[in-house]
């Protein structure tokens, strides 16, 4: 089916969807947009207000790496959702930022018009190898996802549950008697890596810290230094893939990657693409879940009532995980490149323009989530775009949910009462990803 036909269905369904009341989905009629024929005018009109409030005009002169964005993340996202469906950046070669849920969904699903093949980040540093399958389009992307998905389906990851819980307890054992911990270095940056390395890749966890550091610097270091940091990760994982290629097969994900896929009948993909797959999966596996864990535990440390409710009713954990993923987005935004001239929410984009899909904003769009700024772990239904939308949906989403659930359950069993250490507070770093750098907890 082509994209247009499916869009028509989408509209039919949307009407159906909104007929059902009493849920977190709300009727679009409640949110009729003000008459606004000229998006440039809107951006101009609110620009000064943004400058006065945040020190930078986030509508006309956005920069995802500006600390003023990260420091005021949620207020800025909410302003974008209300007033500026498409913001403009002039950093480097410039880019657009699309925030509303329906627009983000449309772009994510229309890979023909909005391609991933030129990378997920704006002003992509020269010399950085492309990350597959993230920075590719169908049919290459489909060929890879078809062989990778079975290793990361809900059924496939469920068998890792016991090991992940055991690892969570091993980490807690190391600091529980001390009565305090620095959560990021002692737990949050470790557990996702252990889960991925031990269960999925079969790599020793001793080298985890250097890889965590490599992907962190590859993301947040000054742009020109990023390729070198990622280069080290490529080298390490390339060596591992070569090693595994020459070993007897274990029937795991790494064997699947080493075997490769055909891009067209009889044409096997190059070896570099296989290394790239391993890097991308590792990147996703260790660089994102940490933030949701840490931000959620910070929230629970500062909201004892919610914490007690979760301890009293463990059955509410699945909903809580979805809500935490919605409100603490580790992936702020990833981008696409327009393959033709196209209009989004009234803004005309040219062929070659880069556009960021603001997943963090899209998950708190009042057009699809009731009272989106409120954190409510009892929401019956949680709709969010934290794992992306369209064919590039986070391949590790099922593993991430499992890790989060296991972490919160095991943590609350061992440490039901905890708080942020006096005189400290969490520190963050924000770009296309958001990370928490430090979180001191006492118990």
């Amino acid at each position, binding site marked *: 089916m082509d994209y247009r036909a499916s869009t028509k269905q989408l509209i039919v369904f949307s009407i*159906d969807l909104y007929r059902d009341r009493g849920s977190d989905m709300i009727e679009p009629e409640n949110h009729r947009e003000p008459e606004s024929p000229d998006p440039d005018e809107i951006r101009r009109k609110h620009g000064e207000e943004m400058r006065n409030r945040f020190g930078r005009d986030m509508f006309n002169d956005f920069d995802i790496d500006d600390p003023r964005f990260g420091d005021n993340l949620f207020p800025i996202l909410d302003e974008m959702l209300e007033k500026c469906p498409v913001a403009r950046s002039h950093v480097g070669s410039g880019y657009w930022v699309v925030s509303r849920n329906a627009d983000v969904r449309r772009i994510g699903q229309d890979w023909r018009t909005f391609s991933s093949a030129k990378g997920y980040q704006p002003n992509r540093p020269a010399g950085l190898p492309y990350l597959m399958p993230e920075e590719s389009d169908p049919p290459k992307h489909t060929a890879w996802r078809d062989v990778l998905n079975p290793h990361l389906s809900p059924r496939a990851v469920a068998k890792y549950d016991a090991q992940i819980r055991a690892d969570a307890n091993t980490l807690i054992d190391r600091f529980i008697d001390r009565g305090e911990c620095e959560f990021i270095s002692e737990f949050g940056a470790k557990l996702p890596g252990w889960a991925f390395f031990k269960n999925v890749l079969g790599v020793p966890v001793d080298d985890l810290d250097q890889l965590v550091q490599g992907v962190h610097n590859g993301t947040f270091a000054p742009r020109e230094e990023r390729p070198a940091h990622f280069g080290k990760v490529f080298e390490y994982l390339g060596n591992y893939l070569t090693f595994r290629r020459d070993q007897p097969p274990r029937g795991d994900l790494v064997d699947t990657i080493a075997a490769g896929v055909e891009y067209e009948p009889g044409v096997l993909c190059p070896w570099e693409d296989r290394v790239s797959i391993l890097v991308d999966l590792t990147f996703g596996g260790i660089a994102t879940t940490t933030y949701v864990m840490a931000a959620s535990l910070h929230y629970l440390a500062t909201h004892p009532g919610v914490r007690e409710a979760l301890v009293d009713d463990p059955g509410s954990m699945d909903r809580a995980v979805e809500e935490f993923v919605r409100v603490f987005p580790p992936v702020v935004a990833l981008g696409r490149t327009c393959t033709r001239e196209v209009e989004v929410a009234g803004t005309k984009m040219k062929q070659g323009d880069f556009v960021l899909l603001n997943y963090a904003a899209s998950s708190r769009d009042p057009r699809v989530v009731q009272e989106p700024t409120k954190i409510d772990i009892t929401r019956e239904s949680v709709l969010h775009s934290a794992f992306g939308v369209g064919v590039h949906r986070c391949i590790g989403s099922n593993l991430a949910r499992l890790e989060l659930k296991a972490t919160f359950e095991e943590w609350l069993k061992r440490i039901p009462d905890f708080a942020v250490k006096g005189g400290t507070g969490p520190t963050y770093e924000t770009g296309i990803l958001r990370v928490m750098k430090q979180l001191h907890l006492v118990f």
Partner: protein
Amino acid sequence: MQVKIDAVLCSGHGRCAVLAPTVYKLDDNGYNADRGKTLEVPAGQEAAARKGAKLCPERAITLIEG
């Protein structure tokens, strides 16, 4: 009531099967096992079917009220 699962839009979020396991099943890839098909919703499962459809991040499920 029937539900139609879009063959293209389903991207394997898997929420439908969590929210309404009696209506929606996943295949070995974690995608809806009935992509491209229209299913009869078992009697009494209409509310679950609606919920699963409503929470699909891709809006890949169309409800057809009987």
